[in-house]
């Protein structure tokens, strides 16, 4: 028990730090800490990684509000009203409502996770290979659809990830392709240098290419200024509630990250508000809603992982990887076979949210000071950490080479505006999709009708088709105008 508490604490502290520091995202930091989890048990590992993930959702808002630089992508929208509030001398309430809103939404999210996951897992027991194949296909299409850039580019990355997954397995043993357990293990071994390279090293390289200095202390409020007044609370409660709901359900969708959640909830608040013109001028609803949404999304994102074994975004995919390395295969049976993992995570999330509230409000000055760490010390240290991580998995210099290769690849792809999340999803979901498609075909003795033989898979496949058609249609509409 104490080790799990420690794992939770370490996770949320690192998460907040990473959230505050611009440039290093949750995926990158989870990749960096992946090797550390090899020395823990599976439950502590997922508790810590989950702590990092939702911790960044808290930390990300701080720099958005104080210096107009989003700590993370999902806090971009918080800049709009948050920084305006800071300029009007209301940085305290802005930070306060962001933290309280995050806390409320995070807790609601955990409750949702707790209530929804077990029945969903029971339902998912009915999923055969055909259904899982259909679901993964839908996930890929949704990832492309929800991508912030172009759909074709996102799908290219997904396909590249799928190809990389094939290589990983075939070079090790082509026979292992037909056995479930060892296949995951073998894909997992190659995963660490790949992910550390693409996210850890790639992110640092991109940051080293540019130079930025920030002065965050100008608006940093004192502790007693952090509490929103009664009026702030009255106008914020609605947005927080709606943000939590929207964020949670977007989080469940594959590809539905905190970014999508925060943008959607901001758009919704602006539409239903009586004073839409105040948005962007420093209104507190514009901070409360997106911050609540991205936290709820962070909890919702664990539902497909823990019930279906299908990760919806890059950070969750990394968590899946960590669990696989421990031999815990997330899926419909997880809650029954490893109840300690599921309930451990749920319990740690309640606790983690309380810890984060305590960490963020009184210690805000400390986190802001973090921004003054010299990047020329920080970045070489991160590269060093990547090297050690990649090396220590297999004690192989070849893996360090792989790390550098993927680091460079990650840098180039970032520069060319490709998103890397679909690549990781492809890499991790690829083997699941391939094996299930082939099992379904083997069971049906080659009859393609197997993918339409059950209601579940037919619905999933038609949903996938619908998403593709609707995005092609809207693309054509756009071209016309």
């Amino acid at each position, binding site marked *: 028990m104490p080790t799990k508490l420690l794992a939770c604490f370490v996770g949320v502290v690192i998460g907040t730090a990473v959230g505050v520091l611009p440039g290093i995202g949750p995926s990158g930091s989870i990749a960096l800490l992946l090797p550390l989890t090899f020395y823990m048990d599976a439950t502590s590992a997922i508790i810590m990684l989950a702590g990092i993930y939702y911790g960044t959702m808290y930390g990300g808002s701080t720099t958005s509000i104080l210096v107009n630089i989003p700590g993370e992508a999902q806090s971009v929208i918080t800049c709009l009203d948050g920084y305006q509030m800071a300029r009007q001398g209301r940085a305290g309430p802005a930070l306060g409502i962001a933290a309280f809103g995050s806390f409320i939404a995070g807790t609601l999210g955990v409750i949702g996770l707790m209530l929804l996951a077990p029945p969903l897992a029971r339902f998912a027991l009915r999923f055969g290979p055909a259904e899982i194949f259909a679901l993964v296909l839908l996930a890929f299409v949704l990832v492309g659809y929800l991508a912030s850039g172009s759909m074709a*580019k996102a799908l290219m990355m997904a396909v590249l990830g799928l*190809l990389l997954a094939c290589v990983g397995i075939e070079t090790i043993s082509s026979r292992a392709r037909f056995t479930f357990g060892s296949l995951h293990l073998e894909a997992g071994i190659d995963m660490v240098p790949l992910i550390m390279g693409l996210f850890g090293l790639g992110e640092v390289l991109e940051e080293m290419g540019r130079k930025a200095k920030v002065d965050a202390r100008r608006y940093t409020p004192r502790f007693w200024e952090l509490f929103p007044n009664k009026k702030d609370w009255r106008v914020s409660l609605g947005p927080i509630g709606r943000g939590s709901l929207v964020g949670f359900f977007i989080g469940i969708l594959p590809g539905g990250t905190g970014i999508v959640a925060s943008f959607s909830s901001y758009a919704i608040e602006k539409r239903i508000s009586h004073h839409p013109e105040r948005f962007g001028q420093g209104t507190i609803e514009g901070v409360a809603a997106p911050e609540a949404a991205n936290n709820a999304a962070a909890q919702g994102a664990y539902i497909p992982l823990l019930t279906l074994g299908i990760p919806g975004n890059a950070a969750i995919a990394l968590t899946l990887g960590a669990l696989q390395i421990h031999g815990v295969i997330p899926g419909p049976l997880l809650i029954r076979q490893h109840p300690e993992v599921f309930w451990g995570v749920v319990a740690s999330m309640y606790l983690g949210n309380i810890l984060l509230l305590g960490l963020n409000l009184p210690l805000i000055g400390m986190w802001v000071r973090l921004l003054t760490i010299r990047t020329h010390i920080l970045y070489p240290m991160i590269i060093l950490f990547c090297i050690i991580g990649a090396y220590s998995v297999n004690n192989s210099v070849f893996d360090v080479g792989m790390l550098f290769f993927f680091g460079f690849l990650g840098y180039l792809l970032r520069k060319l505006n490709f998103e890397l999340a679909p690549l990781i999803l492809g890499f991790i979901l690829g083997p699941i999709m391939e094996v299930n498609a082939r099992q379904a075909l083997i069971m049906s003795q080659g009859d393609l009708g197997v993918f339409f033989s059950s209601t579940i898979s037919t619905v999933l496949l038609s949903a996938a088709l619908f998403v593709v058609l609707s995005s092609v249609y809207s693309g054509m509409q756009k071209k016309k105008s």
Partner: protein
Amino acid sequence: MVESLNLSLGNIHNPGPGFVPFFLGLSLAFLSVLAFFIPDLRMNEEAFWDSWRRGKNILLIFAGLIVYLLLFQTLGFLVNTFWMIIYLMKLAGAEGYRKSILVSILAMVVLYIIFYRLLIIPFPRGILGI
């Protein structure tokens, strides 16, 4: 794609190991062609080359990392990492050598204690034996 053809391709009713890679290659080719021909999907070339020039640092970093990789076995992890951190710190904009060397030595001590003494990861020792 050529690689996957060498593996038995199988057919759609009884796919072999090369079946999925083949079609993945096919779809990647298709998507690239799509991205190439649809003008608004093409990346902004100007911006790309502009950032490329600024990214000269990145190339230097990579040259350093490749040298690091080549010397990994010969020099041993600690010695090799020692110069690399100084090199990276200079590239990241550190002024003067004294501070870089100090940070690097500090990192070495921490690394030695954690990874050589506590976790006992068999890093290559290199010619100096450390």
